[in-house]
């Protein structure tokens, strides 16, 4: 059964794990353990000890990325077994690698390789300074840019999530400052993220050469379904475009708000967040349009009722 007008969205790494995020997915745990075991053999033996809520690696950015990717790929596999294939897919932030797996552009193990290499390239260019990220909700893009410019902050809007929600990247010192300024400016919510990397900003521009060389050595297959770019909302079909997206994803600002609207224009009426969290589901409430965004767990419950 091909689910037209259905899009799978792959979230970035988790900042928290709910207790039982996949309890409606019969047999999912076996599927996840299989992928986890392969990842532990290939990438990091410690991964095999992952266990919600006992050991989640939330303070280890690389392992957290691995786990989110493994969960996403397990979901892809589980849904494939049920013959549920989306019409489109997109990777929010570091979810790009799982989107490539969904579209069968790369293998599961190649995704792990890309995650590790990207992380290594990033570490090379960020070791001299402390960086961070935060989320600011309740101000608009003009407010954000005006505040960054006025206060001469070494920051960049990394992701626009909706008209009033932004992820900001930059130096750790200025990340703290902007949360204070934003509250005075009238932001309804500010939160410093538990990351030390200024993703999707020019601070990572120097990863371009090394990561391009690495990515160009890898084999990318033609996608089995359209992947939508969060950088410019183009449909990625060619190998060159897909590789370019993987590279620029690290240092170019993303726009999830425009991406979700564009997917609506393409006829998508249902979005499924393929991860353990609910960040994309929550954010969807602030994106106009007559669509439904569900967690994988809720989506499965919805299908079971039909």
């Amino acid at each position, binding site marked *: 059964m091909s689910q037209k007008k259905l899009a799978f969205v792959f979230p970035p790494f988790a900042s928290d794990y709910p207790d039982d995020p996949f309890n409606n997915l019969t047999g999912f745990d076996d599927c996840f353990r299989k992928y986890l075991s392969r990842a532990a053999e290939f990438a990091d033996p410690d991964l095999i000890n992952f266990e919600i809520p006992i050991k989640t690696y939330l303070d280890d950015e690389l392992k957290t990325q691995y786990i989110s990717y493994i969960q996403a790929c397990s979901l892809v596999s589980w849904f494939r077994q049920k013959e549920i294939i989306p019409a489109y897919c997109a990777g929010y932030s570091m979810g790009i690698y799982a989107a490539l797996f969904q579209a069968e552009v790369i293998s599961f193990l190649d995704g792990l390789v890309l995650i590790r290499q990207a992380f290594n390239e990033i570490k090379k260019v960020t070791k001299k300074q402390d960086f961070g990220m935060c989320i600011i909700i309740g*101000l608009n893009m003009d407010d954000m840019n005006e505040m960054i410019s006025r206060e001469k902050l070494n920051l960049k809007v990394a992701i626009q999530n909706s008209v009033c929600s932004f992820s900001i990247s930059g130096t750790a010192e200025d990340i703290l400052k902007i949360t204070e300024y934003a509250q*005075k400016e009238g*932001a*309804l919510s500010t939160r410093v993220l538990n990351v030390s990397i200024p993703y999707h900003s020019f601070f990572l521009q120097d990863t371009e050469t090394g990561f391009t060389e690495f990515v160009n050595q890898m084999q990318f297959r033609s996608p089995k379904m359209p992947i939508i770019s969060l950088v410019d909302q183009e449909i990625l079909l060619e190998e060159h475009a897909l590789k370019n997206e993987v590279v620029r994803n690290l240092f170019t600002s993303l726009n999830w708000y425009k991406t979700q609207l564009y997917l609506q224009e393409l006829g998508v009426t249902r979005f499924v967040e393929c991860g353990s969290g609910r960040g994309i589901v929550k954010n969807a*409430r*602030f994106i106009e349009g007559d669509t439904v965004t569900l967690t994988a767990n809720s989506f499965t419950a919805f299908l079971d009722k039909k």
Partner: protein
Amino acid sequence: MALITENTKKEVTDIVFNFFADECEVDIKDIHNDTNIINDIDGDSLMFLELIEIFKKKYNLDIELKTIGKYSVKHPVQTIGQLIDMQLLIIEHENKLLELDH
């Protein structure tokens, strides 16, 4: 400025109670005016924002989010009752909300 009637108060109260019962997956009977939104029912700031959007649409309100944000700094909301009171003030005063502090 909108006139706040008993009917408006009841409508706002019903919407807020039903919203949190649904979002936080708790029985509506367990929600009271002194229920702490974050500590008691695991609510978050996005829910507050969503409620604002619901009321903006329902009452066709002219208010900027940052006006509410600035007001919230001086008048933080912790309980359901405080949230209902603030929503009523937003409906009543819209973008003139901050003038209440002058």
